[in-house]
Structure formats: structure tokens, C-alpha cells
């Protein structure tokens, strides 16, 4: 219910933001509909005035009138629809950006429970559907005007005939709506099933290399065939429902026209209206299903728009991962990091001070604990107990984005972005800074020489044209080039060969001289290059010494990093 209300708000804003185009579109669309309604009337008039008693002069005059009406309806349609479409596209564009801004908001949280594909769908399909409400509104208003115009024209020709259409048309609309409703519900479920089949196909194709490695192509095809057939049956059922609806509407409108013709014919015979009025009435009865059908379509569009708006509202109102925190960290930050009895998930009472400029290695035996620690440092979660302090200020008091401009947590699975190699490395770097040292430290020069175009070569979507190890090096170079006061790196070299890893260990040391650097890793090469290593085992700190000492003296540590 709450999402529904919020969804309404989303629609309201989408319409209000484009009210000028919506108004212009509705107005011109109405002109078009009136013109369309006048055409059959004019046909009737021409038959009545120029054909029944052939009159060339009258024919010429009325054909000129018909031309004027055509110009009016053509102009109204063209510019009205343009305004409506513009309103739809603009509103969708705004919503798309709103969703992106919410996802990227410092407090995060919009991704919780929503895979990226689903969120992208919200930003594209749902935004488009809500935007389309604007177009639907202009068409709906124009259609109502069309129905009213038709009725008025009829009322002028004949009161009873006009009343018949005025009452009959809404009844027809209501019947159509009533009949369509259950069908609509069913077809939505069917469409979901159909979408599933296309998802399965894309999924299998995405995993084709894995399937080939496993020699499981046949099993996958068999499975896809079953899904595809289920989807086919669902679609046939949906199509049958839609066909039934079309057929019913045809029968209803046809019967309605027969009724109008019957009543109109009797009225002419009784002398209360002219022959032209009958022809017009029949023509209008043939015209009216157009705007009536349009109204039914508009109703369906609005329903889709509402469902989409609720999903958008849901994303926009998603709770953040963390709350509060507005302070700015000291500038320039000395870079002292302190854990005070930090406890969260598997971590318990962690006390640790990283001195400004120190290079610290942290070995965490449980990967989940490592993740928790990194999340606490990056303020992706707020700890249950204790605190993380940056230069004496608890990070929970700092605005997350302000914190991250001083402290960078480079996650193990950090993503690269489409663009050149150099653009990726310098993405987070201060303007004008030389990326050379960072690239050298992360051994990105080797990546560049293997890439056609060198540092100016494009690395593809998410760095897809690079291998896993190459991607890790570019991501590390980006983190180093960002030149934050505090850098926390998580397992930066798991897919890098041993020789290169040793080079990178020395490189990090060099590039971050005098800057606080924390390496959360179990790579002996990287740990050997740190000042001090802390071992977190079972959620608590169990040892603390230089790497070589721990390797020599501490069996748990030795197991953790060397086997």
C-alpha cells in the first residue's frame, strides 16, 4: 500500500514535470479527434447536399471544407503526438537519472535484494513505462474529447440518436474494460513466464564457455527446450485470451452500430431527422470505437505505469546501508586509523592502531570476517560494537562520501569500466596528477604493451578484453593513483603470477611511501613488503609482528599464508 502511494507520487511528479507538453499534446490531440469525428459527418453531409440531388457547386464547396478539416486533424495529430512523446521521453529520462542517483547515493542500500539486471530494468523499462503515462494521458484526454465531440455532433443532428451514443459508448467501454480485466491479469502472469524463457537462453549463452568445458551442451539444450515449450504454451494461452477480447469487442461494437442504424433509420422515416444525419450517425458509430478502444489502451498503459512507478518508488525509498554522519574529515588527513573494540558479525573486540604512514598487513583466516572488516572501514555498514576511528573521529560521524575521499577501500572484486586503460587508471586520481608511478607500481605497463592501443586502448565493458590478472592490476593502479590519505587494499593480486606479484609488492611500497596503507591479504609476497602484520583468527587478533617473524614463529600464520 505504501509503495502504491509512493508510486502515485512518482507518476504525479513525472506528469507535473512535463505539464506544458502534456497540455499542448492533449489540446492538439483533441483537435485531431474532433477532425476525425467530423470526417464521417462531412461524408454524410456531402451525400445529403451534393449527391442525393447532384449539385456540382455544393460538392466543390464541401470538398474544400473537407480539406480544411483534414489539415486541422493532420496538424493536430502531428504536433500533438510530438508533444506527448516528448513529455514521455523527458519524464523517462528524468526518472532514469533519479534511479541512477539513488543507486550511487553515498549511503547506498538501493542494491540490497536487487540484482544489477533488475535495477537496470527499473531504470530503463520502468522509467519508460512511467514516462509513457504522459503520452497515454494526452491520448486519453484527446480520446475523451473525440467521444464527446462525436456525441455533440450527433446531439445536434438528433437528440435521441445522440443520447443513444452518449449512453451506449460508455456502456460499451465499461463492458470492454470489465471483460478485459481478468484477461489482463492472466496475460501478465503468462508474460512473466515468457520472459523467463528468454532469460534462460541468455543465461545459457552467457555460460557457454563453462558448458563447453563441462561437455554439457546437450543437457543445456534439452533443458532450454523444455523451458521454451512451457513459454510457448503460456504465450499461446495469453494470445488466446487477447484474441477472445478482440473478438468480443468486435461483436459488441458491431451490435452497437446496428442499434444506431436501426434507431437512426426509424427517426429518418418518422421525419424527425434528415438522411444526412443518419449517414453521419452511422459514420460516427463506426468512428467511435477508435477513441473508445484508445481509452481501453490508455487504461492498460496507466495500470502498467502504476506498477512500474511503485517499483521506482521502492528503489528511490530504499533504506541506506548506514544512516547519519555529516562531519567532514580533517584536511589534509594525517591518516591514523584505529579500531576500538570493533565487533560486528564474526569480528569480536578488535583493537588496532595503524600509525600515519604505516604499511600494515592484515591476514584474516575467515574470508567472511575479512569482508566484514572491509565493510566497516568503508562505512558500508556500521559496527554493532566498538568503533572505527579516522584521525580520532569515529567514521560513523563522517559523511560516507567525505570519508571515502580520504580513505579508499579497494575491494577484491572492484570493477573496471568501459573506456581506455588510462581513463580507468586516472578515474579517481586528482586532476593533473601523473599516473606513471601508479601504473609502474601495479605493473600495468605490461598490460598496456599487450593491449592494442597501449594505454589509449579500450578495455571493453567491465574490462572484458583483459584477463583476470590484468584487470586486477589496472584496478590496483587506479587505487594507487587515487592517492588517498589511507588506502585499504583487499587481495589485489590473486590472479597475478608469482613473479609479477613480487614486483607489485615492491611497487605498492614505493608508490605509498609515507602514506597509510593496509593490505588485507594472505599473499606472502605482499605481506613481506609491509612493516607489520596482524593475524585475525576466529574473529580476534591473535598475533602481531613483521611477516618474517610470524612465518618463523607462528604455525597458524604459516598455515594461513604458505599452504
Amino acid at each position, binding site marked *: 500500500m505504501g509503495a502504491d502511494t509512493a508510486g502515485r507520487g512518482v507518476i504525479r511528479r513525472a506528469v507535473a514535470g512535463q505539464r506544458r507538453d502534456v497540455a499542448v499534446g492533449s489540446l492538439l490531440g483533441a483537435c485531431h479527434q474532433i477532425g476525425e469525428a467530423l470526417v464521417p459527418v462531412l461524408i454524410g453531409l456531402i451525400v445529403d447536399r451534393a449527391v442525393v440531388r447532384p449539385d456540382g457547386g455544393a460538392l466543390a464547396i464541401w470538398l474544400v471544407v473537407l480539406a480544411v478539416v483534414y489539415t486541422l486533424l493532420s496538424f493536430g495529430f502531428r504536433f500533438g503526438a510530438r508533444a506527448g512523446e516528448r513529455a514521455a521521453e523527458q519524464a523517462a529520462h528524468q526518472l532514469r537519472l533519479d534511479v541512477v542517483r539513488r543507486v550511487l547515493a553515498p549511503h547506498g542500500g538501493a542494491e540490497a535484494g536487487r540484482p544489477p539486471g533488475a535495477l537496470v530494468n527499473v531504470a530503463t523499462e520502468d522509467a519508460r513505462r512511467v514516462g509513457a503515462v504522459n503520452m497515454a494521458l494526452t491520448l486519453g484526454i484527446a480520446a475523451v474529447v473525440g467521444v464527446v465531440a462525436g456525441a455533440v455532433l450527433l446531439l445536434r443532428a438528433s437528440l435521441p440518436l445522440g443520447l443513444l451514443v452518449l449512453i451506449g459508448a460508455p456502456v460499451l467501454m465499461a463492458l470492454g474494460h470489465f471483460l478485459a480485466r481478468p484477461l489482463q491479469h492472466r496475460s501478465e502472469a503468462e508474460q512473466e513466464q515468457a520472459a523467463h524463457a528468454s532469460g534462460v537462453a541468455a543465461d545459457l549463452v552467457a555460460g557457454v564457455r563453462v558448458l563447453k568445458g563441462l561437455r554439457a551442451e546437450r543437457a543445456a*539444450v534439452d533443458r532450454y527446450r523444455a523451458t521454451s515449450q512451457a513459454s510457448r504454451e503460456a504465450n499461446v494461452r495469453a494470445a488466446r485470451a487477447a484474441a477472445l477480447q478482440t473478438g468480443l469487442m468486435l461483436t459488441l461494437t458491431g451490435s452497437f452500430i446496428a442499434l444506431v442504424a436501426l434507431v437512426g433509420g426509424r427517426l429518418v422515416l418518422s421525419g424527425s431527422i434528415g438522411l444526412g444525419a443518419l449517414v453521419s450517425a452511422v459514420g460516427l458509430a463506426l468512428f467511435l470505437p477508435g477513441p473508445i478502444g484508445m481509452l481501453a489502451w490508455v487504461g492498460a498503459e496507466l495500470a502498467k505505469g502504476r506498477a512500474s512507478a511503485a517499483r521506482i518508488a521502492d528503489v528511490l525509498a530504499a533504506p541506506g546501508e548506514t544512516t547519519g554522519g555529516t562531519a567532514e574529515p580533517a584536511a589534509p588527513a594525517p591518516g591514523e586509523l584505529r579500531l576500538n573494540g570493533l565487533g560486528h558479525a564474526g569480528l569480536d573486540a578488535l583493537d588496532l592502531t595503524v600509525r600515519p604512514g604505516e604499511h600494515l598487513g592484515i591476514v584474516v583466516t575467515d574470508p567472511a570476517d575479512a569482508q566484514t572488516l572491509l565493510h566497516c572501514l568503508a562505512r558500508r555498514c556500521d559496527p554493532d560494537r566498538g568503533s572505527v576511528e579516522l584521525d580520532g573521529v569515529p567514521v560513523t560521524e563522517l559523511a560516507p562520501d567525505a570519508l571515502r575521499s580520504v580513505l579508499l577501500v579497494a575491494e577484491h572484486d572492484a570493477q573496471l569500466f568501459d573506456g581506455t586503460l588510462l581513463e580507468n587508471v586516472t578515474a579517481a586520481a586528482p586532476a593533473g596528477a601523473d599516473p606513471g608511478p601508479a601504473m609502474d607500481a601495479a605493473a600495468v605497463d605490461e598490460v598496456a604493451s599487450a593491449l592494442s592501443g597501449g594505454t589509449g586502448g579500450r578495455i571493453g565493458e567491465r574490462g572484458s578484453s583483459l584477463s583476470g590478472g590484468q584487470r586486477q592490476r589496472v584496478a590496483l593502479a587506479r587505487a594507487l593513483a587515487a592517492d588517498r590519505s589511507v588506502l585499504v587494499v583487499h587481495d589485489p593480486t590473486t590472479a597475478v603470477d608469482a613473479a609479477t606479484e613480487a614486483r607489485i609488492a615492491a611497487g605498492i611500497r614505493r608508490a605509498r611511501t609515507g602514506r597509510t596503507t593496509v593490505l588485507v591479504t594472505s599473499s606472502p609476497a605482499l605481506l613481506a613488503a609491509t612493516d607489520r602484520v596482524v593475524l585475525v583468527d576466529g574473529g580476534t587478533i591473535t598475533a602481531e609482528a613483521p611477516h618474517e617473524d610470524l612465518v618463523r614463529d607462528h604455525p597458524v600464520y604459516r598455515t594461513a599464508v604458505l599452504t
Partner: protein
Amino acid sequence: MTTPSHPADDSAELLPVATPARTRAALRALIRPDRGLALTGIGVLVAATAVGLLVQPLLGRIVDIVADGRPAGDLTLPVVLLVAVAAVQGVTTTIGLTRVARLGETVLARLREQFVERALDLPADRLERAGAGDLTARVTGDVARVAEAVRSALPEMARSVLAILLTLGALALLDVRFLLAALLAVPVQLLTARWYVTRALTLYADQRVANGAQQQQLLETIGGAVTVRGHRLERQHTERGAGRSRKAVDLTMRSVNLVLGFYGRLHIAEYIGLAAVLIAGFWLVRDGAVSIGTATAAALYFHSLFGPVNAALVLLDDAQSAAAGLARLVGVTDLARPTEPVAGKAEPAGAAEPAPVPHQRTGPQQRTAPGAAVAVDAVSHAYGPGRPVLHEVSLTLRPGEHVALVGTSGAGKSTLARIVAGVQQPTAGTVTAPAGAGEPSVVLVTQEVHVFTGSLAEDLRLARPDATDAELRGALSTVHALDWAEALPDGLDTVVGEGGHRLDPARAQQLALARLVLAGPALAVLDEATAEAGSAGARVLERSAEAALSGRTALIVAHRLTQAVAADRVVVLEAGRVVESGPHEELRDADGPYAALWRAWSGSRTAPHP
């Protein structure tokens, strides 16, 4: 390091697109099994349209009755007939549309199934050259476009074309001069259609590209939101997203303007035709050739043509875009089926290389349990002229032996692994590997993890479709994954993969190892199958891998040297050549490349030997 790294140049060799003639032939072949359905469907729709055309003459008859001032009772018959027409039209339309939809859906299902089957059958190196994006775009975008056409454009197009043809016929029946008058609109309509289609094609292609770019940007930004926030790239990404979205919006507005210009021209055609029919009515009534009712019916007929004509013309580009999509799908389904993956023709990779020697495997030799011998004989490979990766590599694996392949990035480890796994054809040389009967004889597991959408059990059964639940549990237990798998919300029935329960990379890789256990090959090739997990997770995975490999011959591409320590033998590859081979201890103590690698990896010259 991993897969043979592909340069980011434009050398990607896209999959073929079928010619129009070939596409039509393929379409005919797809429809052939359901010819009966097609004929009856179209037949019923023709009947429905024809019945509908009785409306105007009946209305004309009412006009005549009224014009002649006949008794009101005479109205009853045509009115009753009008209602009957409406009823028959409703029923036949329902039946016709249902049949056409069934036909469309059946053909569509057939097409997409053929497509997926062929796509999964493509040789791996062909896939690499085309890039995964091309195939994914076809299976999502093109299938959707064809489906859309089948679901909405096709039935509407069929009804519109039928309505146009039959209405023109009906006009001719009233009086052929009405038809001639109506046809005055046709030249304008044809010119308009041509004007539109030539412009629409390029514009819509641009629009699709812009939409694709927008989609990709959003996926990147949203999928990488943590990275974007962490690195403070919010503004860059918002601007990129806004730019791509703006471009897509601009192109959409341009196509809207095009469509609206198209309708504007059609309005002119409508006016010309309508005026002509009215003038013809005027002449014919004046000359006494037709009744007023007939003239009215003719005008109403022409008026009723507006809708179908507009629909048919505007659907032209849907039809065209569907045809383009169909051509791209048929391009893949038409690809020559390789006789067998193993005996498949080696693609001539580089003109500079010696003539390719087909990749051979000694005949259907019996599966030798528990492992199998593998002989790699003088295998060379190049990914293109001047890009050699392997130079006459020879290597033998004894049955049950575990060999670790180590070396720096770009040494050719992955390429050799893929060749041994039979996924890649070498440029020269032969690999003799076990050829199993029924079960796959060799399985390759790489660091590329993919959790297939569906339940966990379904994912596992890809490896062995007839596996029992107990076997699934057994395989999971072997790789130490049963505990977490049973702790999932619905156990093995938990939906995983895209949109389902997300598994972290380590668990996803354990799943891949469990699939290996289920497939039960004599030879297993692991290509850095433990790299993605992060160092702490890697240890867990290494234990899983060890368990999964027990009893099999195994080639393990390793970067964590702990895997080398555990292997029976270490083979060091450098610049595409084998430079060292022997047990870990032996190589570590020798003063060769492996010893240097070990020192670098262990991070200390004084590190004790484990």
C-alpha cells in the same frame, strides 16, 4: 593468464548474417511442419474479414430503405443481419487470431531452440573470435524483436492486409469506378512508404545502438555501484548515464518526428482518395449508375480503409526490423554443424603458420579408470599471424598423475590447458587423450564461474542430467560444499544465479567442481580454478579441487604455488616452451626458473620450506 587475452581492437569477427533469400527459405522450413495451422488460420481470418465487409452494404441498404421512404419494418432484416455479421465476425476473428498466434509461437519456439542449440554447439575458438556480446545480443535482442513481431505485428499485419485487399475488392463489386477512384491514393501511399522505410532503417539502427549503449552504461554503473561509490566516481558515472540517456532520447524523438511526418503524408493520401470516391459517387448517382446507398457504402468502405492502411504501412518497419533480427538468427542456425567437436576442422589461425594439422585423438579407446594417459606431441599454437603462443610443446601425463602448469602471464598456460581439454584446436601438433564412451572424457574448469539460473540441483544436473539427489549430495560433499548448500533457504532447491540466491565466487567455483565430480571424467583440466576467490577462499577451494581430482588424471594451471606443491609434478612454461619439469622439491632446490618463482612467491628468501 586466463583465457587467451583478446586485444580490444575491432578484429572481433562477428557471426554471420543470413542473406534475405536464405532467411526466407529458413522461414519456410520453420513453418512447414505447421502448414495446416497456417492455412486454416489465414483462411479463418479471410472469412472474418470478408464477413466484416458486409457491414457497409447493409448500412447502404438501410440508407436506401430510408431514402425510398419504405416502411420501418423493412429495417429489421438488415439490422438483424448486421448483428449476425458482428457475431460471426467476433467468433471467426477469435479463432483466426488464436490459430495465427499458435502458429507464430510454435515457429518462434522452434527458431529459438534451434538457435540456442547451434549457439552452444559453436566451436570455442569461433565463439572467442566473435565475442560473447554478439551471441548474447542475438539471443536477447533479436529473439525479442522477432517475438514482438510474431505477437503483435504479424496478426495485425495479416488482418490489415486482408482488410485492404478485400475492401478494395468490395469497392470494385459496388462499381469498378469506385475502385479506380480509391486507387488514386495509392501512388502517394507508395511514395510515402518508400520515403519512410529508407529513413527509418538507418535511424532505427542508430536508435538501437544508442539504446544498447545506454543499457550497457547503466549495467556497468549499477553493477559496479560499490566501486563507483568507493572511488568517488559518482559524478562521472551520473554524467555518463545522463549523456547516454540524452542521446537515446534525442534519437527516439527523431524517429517520432519521422513517424509523424509519415502519417502527415498519409493524411494527404486519405484526402485525395476520399474526395475522389465522393466525386465518383456524385457522377455515378447523377448518371443513375448506382443508388445513393451504394455511393454511401463506397464512401464508408473507403473511410474504413484508413485504419488498416496506416497500420500496414507503419508495421512495415516492425516487419523490416524483425526480418533483420531473423536474418541474424538464421545466420547462426545455418552455420555448418561441425562433425564432432574433437574432429572439427582446425581454423587456419595464421597464414604465416605452417599448414594446420588436424587435432587428433586416438580412436574410441576404452576409458581407462581411474585416470587416463595424455600425450601432447609437438603442439604449436598461434592466435594470428605473428602472435605465436606455443612452440612445439610436448608433454605426457601418466594415468592418475596430477601435473601443475606454472609460468608467468602470457606464457601460454591457458592455451595449452584449452588444447589439452579439446576446447581449442592447435595450429599444429596432436593431443592424444582419453575418448570416453557416453560420459565426457575430459572436463575443463576455468576461473570463469557461471552459476546457471535455476535451482542448485538443476545447475548440478547439467553435468549429469540423470543424477539422483543422493549423487548430487555426494558430489557436493566431495568438494566440501554440502554444508552450505543444505543451509540455503530451500536447500538444493534454492534458486541460484541471476535473480536468485547469490553465491559468492568461492561457492560458485565449488559448484563448478561439484559438476566436475558428477561428470566424472578420466581427465580433468583446471585453469586457475581457484583464482577468483581471494586468497583465503582460495585455500578452501584448493582443498575442494584436490578432492574433486582424486582418482583422475589432472592438468592444473596454477598461480598459487601451493597447488604446485601438492601436484605430483610441476611443468614450467616460459614464452610458449616447456623449460622445466619435475617434482616440486626437486625444482625448488635446483637453481632454475621455478626456484626463482618460488622465492618470489613465498615473499622471502628465508621462508622455510613447508
